[in-house]
């Protein structure tokens, strides 16, 4: 049994049919071709699959696709045209916050969500915001530095 749903992913409308127990992660990757969302632990622990659903960061491996009927989803691909993304991306590159890159899409979504809510975060707030995103390469220090640097730069652009 499949169910028709409508949702907006990165500004584009889709009307897929989904299984009752299908996750948003599966829908995005396997049916809609949105591969920036990574399948890691699929247990809600690693955060590689983090997306925004109606503006809230969630693990797409835990949320049922059928529940997302009528909702708006943002993945790392959806940030491509966002001017803040360019700053965040540049900061990640400059600080060496990317090694294997597998955690980066989820990390960027969590960082983006934080900076939307709190444009001038403290280091503790940054660490809290990415506490649901595991990185097995960097040891986090460079990622924290990059997000703080991006926040400073965004502040400069504003003024």
């Amino acid at each position, binding site marked *: 049994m499949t*169910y028709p749903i409508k949702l907006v992913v990165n500004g584009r409308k889709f009307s897929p049919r989904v299984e009752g127990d299908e996750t948003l992660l599966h829908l995005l990757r396997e049916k809609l071709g949105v591969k920036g969302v990574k399948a890691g632990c699929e*247990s*809600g622990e690693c*955060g590689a699959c983090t997306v925004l659903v109606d503006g809230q*960061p969630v693990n797409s491996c835990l949320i049922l696709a059928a529940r997302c009927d009528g909702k708006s989803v943002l993945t790392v691909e959806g940030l491509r045209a966002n001017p803040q993304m360019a700053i965040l991306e540049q900061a990640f590159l400059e600080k060496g916050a990317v090694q294997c890159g597998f955690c980066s899409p989820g990390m960027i979504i*969590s960082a983006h969500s934080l900076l939307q809510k709190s444009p001038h975060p403290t280091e503790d707030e940054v660490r809290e915001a990415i506490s649901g995103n595991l990185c097995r390469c960097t040891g986090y220090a460079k990622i924290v530095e990059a997000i703080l640097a991006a926040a400073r730069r965004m502040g400069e652009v504003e003024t």
Partner: protein
Amino acid sequence: MSRYSRPEYVKVLTVDDAIEELIRNGEAYVVAGGTDLVVNMRLGRCAPRKLVDLSAVPQLSVVSPDHNSVVIGATATMSRIVEALSPWPSLSALTTAASLLGTPQVRNLATIGGNIGNASPSAELVGPLVALGASAVLRGPKGDRCVPIEELFVGPGETVLSKSEVLTAVDVPIPPTKTLTAYARHRRTRVDLATVGVSVALGVTAGRCQHCRVVLTAVAPTPLRAIEAEGVLAGQKLTEEVIAQAALVASAEARPISDVRASADYRRELVEIITRRSLTSLAATLGVN
């Protein structure tokens, strides 16, 4: 082919519709946040025939504080609970637990109803709710009934809910003035489950402990009130010795097992330390030691 026949799905708009679905299909599961159920389905630990999604029932996600009590809808998320109840310092045990559960992403999905209904011995919110004297509102075909959280659990994963009942809300009495609550727990990493949880409610009148509850979690099949430790504190001045004695007694009341997270001995030791620290810090905040 998939590992089992895949479940049907229905998104209900009222609790009564959910109950109807549960009566019609004995192997239906209610789901809201999905943070446990979706993983358990993927791992083949459970195979519901039907998923009854409560997440779109409007009244169920409401958190409504009033002078005497807070009614928290079953699908209120951890994030929502922290946001709505942070202004109440006396509910600190509950908001602390909600802010410690899982990760930021999980807290945007996980609901209070799920945390209670799964009946996990290490569930974060359950100890604080028992310490606060909260009740669960259960709705079934014959109407509502109210069950103290303390009496809700039968064993790990087991509650007194019948197959056709839905947990719709949690009713939390707001503690009287001069009463404070706290939740502290030990876990290995930021996202790990609790190895030991200690919830404390402490009320003081004229320098003496007038009301107290000490609730231990993850050290017994169900949340455990440390009744004897409460007895040590009752009516006493909260001196260092009284607090140390209560913590020691609480540790003896714990009935922990050894598992992958910690040994029973280590858990018992943690109960003493965390209980002592929690009581000391609450007594200090109340200005009585």
